[in-house]
């Protein structure tokens, strides 16, 4: 009988920090721009240049540590990781080795279809990014704009057991880092990158199997697919009597498979030693407290606040705090004067449905929070009915903006003029004498028919409450 295996997975996430300047010099930390346009003596590795630590980067690293319930070390040490590569102009990367800034944290996850799980975080250390190499045949071009950008590397224990758990962890981590203002999480620009360590072992076995490291997976989908493939590959290998070899593997997204990049014996000896150009980083208790106090609201706390402060349902609050942008959109709508619950309904049901094609990215919404607030206010004031509001909303989605203008230009203002509505009621009652007789004979359902016809006649502008009231009065049935 075939043995049953389990996957053992650990993750290393590199997240670029949202500081204005690079980790060790005053050159701007931005994405894009002309190649090698953001390089100074320090990030270009010129003779004589020295690193000076960016305080903002420290704050953001500590913030990441606090958001993930880590111990913030009072003393941490920068080390040099030595290796040669053209996009590493100093010949070493400044990183942290045996004394990282944050240790021993955790993140609770709820994988789809699984049960809640606590993933232990081993460490978060600070380091600088390398430049970017682009290969064209036998030529390689190097762009150092990214060199020296501050990063945190967040390393878990091998606590994950499935691709679903791995992606659940990554999504949650991604969400938290964005909420904390640590990283902007743009995976396409490479500022949230993931390496995965995968091994397998027979269920019940305590010792870990030999692991492979999967490098540079830049989407959640790739992470899932790469782990799937790798677990199957390792099981097949072992079942076939082979041994897993420790190595670094890449992901071939076209062929949907992993491939060998570097065997263990080709691995670098990084010759780590303490960076003599930077004194140890000493953080006081009060500094850490200050960072804690200045910590932006994290998703869980924000969700609870939305329930309490705005009276939202747990579900709506969950949806509205799924991304920082969405929660911000909601709060801006409320701040612009919309009723919170109505605004929440419009966003979660109407707006997000319209944005389905963009993965619900609120950043792609053609409607601004102030405009949505106006719409909600128009309903509240009775200027338009809920039904008309949906029509107005459709126009707004098309990018026509200002709901008041739409209502005015299309003449959609709700009619509250009793005389006018009365005339429509009379006209409809006169038009359908047999239905009137049936109604008066006791078929109460017919009321809805009349309301519908009157609304049609008024092109939706008649106030439904007024219509009802007048109908009852005219037909003498209460």
């Amino acid at each position, binding site marked *: 009988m075939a043995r049953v295996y389990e996957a053992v997975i650990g993750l290393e996430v590199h997240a670029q920090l949202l500081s204005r300047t690079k980790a060790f010099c005053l050159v701007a930390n931005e994405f894009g721009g002309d190649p090698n346009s953001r390089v100074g*003596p320090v990030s*270009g*590795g*010129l*003779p*004589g*240049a*020295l*690193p*000076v*630590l960016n305080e903002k980067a420290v704050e953001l690293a500590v913030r990441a540590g606090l958001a993930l319930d880590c111990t913030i070390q009072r003393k941490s040490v920068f080390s*040099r990781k*030595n290796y*040669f590569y*053209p996009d590493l*102009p*100093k*010949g*070493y990367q400044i990183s942290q080795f045996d004394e990282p800034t944050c240790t021993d944290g955790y993140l609770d996850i709820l994988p789809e279809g699984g049960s809640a799980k606590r993933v232990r975080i081993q460490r978060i250390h600070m380091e600088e990014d390398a430049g970017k190499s682009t290969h064209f045949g*036998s030529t390689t071009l*190097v762009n150092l704009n990214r060199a020296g950008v501050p990063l945190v590397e967040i390393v878990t224990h091998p606590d994950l057991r499935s691709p679903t758990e791995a992606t659940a962890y990554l999504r949650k981590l991604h969400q938290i880092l964005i909420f904390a203002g640590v990283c902007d999480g743009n995976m396409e620009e490479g500022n949230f990158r993931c390496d995965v360590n995968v091994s397998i072992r027979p269920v019940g076995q305590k010792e870990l199997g030999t692991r492979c490291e999967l490098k540079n997976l830049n989407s959640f989908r790739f992470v899932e697919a790469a782990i799937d493939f790798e677990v199957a590959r390792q099981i097949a290998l072992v079942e076939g009597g082979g041994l897993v070899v420790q190595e670094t593997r890449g992901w071939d997204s076209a062929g949907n498979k992993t491939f060998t990049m570097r065997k263990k014996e080709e691995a670098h*000896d990084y*010759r*780590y*030693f303490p960076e*003599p*150009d*930077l*004194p140890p980083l000493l953080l006081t208790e009060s500094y850490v407290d200050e960072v804690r106090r200045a910590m932006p609201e994290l998703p869980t706390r924000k969700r609870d606040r939305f329930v309490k402060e705005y009276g939202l349902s747990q579900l709506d609050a969950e949806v509205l705090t799924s991304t920082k942008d969405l929660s911000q959109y909601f709060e801006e709508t409320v701040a612009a004067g919309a009723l919170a619950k109505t605004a929440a309904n419009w966003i979660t049901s109407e707006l997000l449905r319209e944005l389905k094609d963009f993965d619900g990215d609120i950043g792609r919404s053609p409607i601004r929070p102030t405009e949505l607030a106006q719409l909600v206010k128009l309903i509240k004031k009775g200027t338009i009915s809920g039904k008309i509001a949906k029509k107005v909303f459709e126009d707004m989605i098309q990018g026509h903006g200002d709901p008041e203008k739409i209502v005015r230009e299309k003449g959609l203002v709700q009619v509250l003029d009793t005389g006018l509505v009365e005339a429509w009621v009379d006209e409809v009652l006169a038009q359908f004498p047999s239905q009137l007789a049936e109604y008066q004979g006791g078929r109460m359902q017919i009321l809805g028919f009349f309301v519908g016809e009157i609304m049609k006649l008024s092109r939706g502008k008649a106030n439904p409450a007024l219509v009802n009231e007048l109908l009852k009065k005219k037909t003498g049935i209460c």
Partner: protein
Amino acid sequence: MSDASLLLNGSFEHLRCALDEGRVTAVELARESLDRARATQPELNAFVSLSEQAEVLRNAEAADARLLRGERHPVLGMPVAVKDLILTRGQRTTAASRMLENFVAPYDATVSARLKQSGAVIIGKANLDEFAMGSSNQTSYFGPSRNPWDSTRVPGGSSGGSAAAVAARVSPLSLGTDTGGSIRQPASFCGITGLKPTYGRVSRYGVVAFASSLDQVGPMCTDALGCAATLEAISGGDVHDATSSSRPVPKFFEDTIAFRSLEKIRGLRIGVPKEYLGQGLDPEVGRIVQEALDNLQALGAEIKSISLPHTRFALPVYYLVATSEASSNLARYDGIHYGHRAKDFTSGKLEDLYALSRGEGFGEEVRLRILLGTYALSSGYYDAYYRKASQVRALIRQDFETAFRDCDLIASPTSPTTAFGVGEKTDDPIAMYLADVYTLSANLAGLPGLSMNVGFDAKRLPVGLQLMAPWWEETRLLGTAAQYQAIHPSTLTPSPVALKFGRVAQGGC
């Protein structure tokens, strides 16, 4: 003979007065300095490159204008030679290596910028051992510099060109760097005064790194007052160097003069470590140093024997720490972004590009030290070598902490011998490394150390006395040297090469 020529053979203080009183101009001095640099270059090879004459004169004119406006700064208008390891914007900075043969510095080192702001006039870039790795200036890609007392001999190293330029009185001042004795040992060999400041006193930004935790820039001058003046100009915290100290900078020049006039040698407790007087010390050097100690005693100092028990580990610890850091610091010279790139690179393999470029660009001593350091940091050896060396380094520092509880200064020979011949010791790295045996410890402990001339051996070669002070007490070193030099002016005698330019200016301030 011009006044400028006379003055360059005199004391720094005398020159300072002459400039301040308008008896000589910065332009006259700069012109004379450049003339001397050119005249001595064939014999001494003290410079890798000279500053452009027009630029030098422009800067000297600017200094004269400031002097005329009544501005005063101890180095205003002074010609200065800068070790070619220190970046000077728009000028070639080679580290005496083929690797950087054509490297033009795109920015000023902090010390260069501070010298310029203070009105010193940089006349050229002084020769050195390649990447400051050596004790004789013989590893320079541009050929060895030579000793103005005897040009068949080395000027010491690595700041050999800086020492030779001052000893030949080409410039009254120069900047050197000191990683294990690279200011003090050549100062001793060339009969001048050189100071390695406390680690962190002077910014390292823009100084080609050899061993980051040991490197320190410092002044070299005919006498202690010139060193004080230069130190005052270059010291102080720097936002570009996280290891620089922001503690206030004393008025070194005035304070040194005050120390001298108050004769503060009296009452100083000067410890002489018995470990520094043992095997390997040339008896003649030992005797002359003893005479100097007697002279200090005559001036009221208390001389006492002390012990620095971990001294014998200083050399191995130094060579592990320095080579380890160097192996990493020199990794950036890879032929990719700047510097030497191998021309006959045809294989298309990146490793070959590195190996060829670095093999061609670095000289033998540099390659040797990179290999040593790479080995010491390698996985499996780190604990036995680098980590252990760091631990012993802490013990060496402790030795000094303990010693300075009972004395104010520590004195020793600067080097076990006087200047040796060009070509000597080049095949025996260990014998060469022993030339720094008395100076290494100050770097390992981060202490300030000074070397001054205290006499001459039978071959008329200068002998240096090293003084070490507690952290941040440079004034005590400079003041002691200044008072000693005032009483023993023969120790300031110009070298034979300098005397070819004329006699020594007489007269006071």
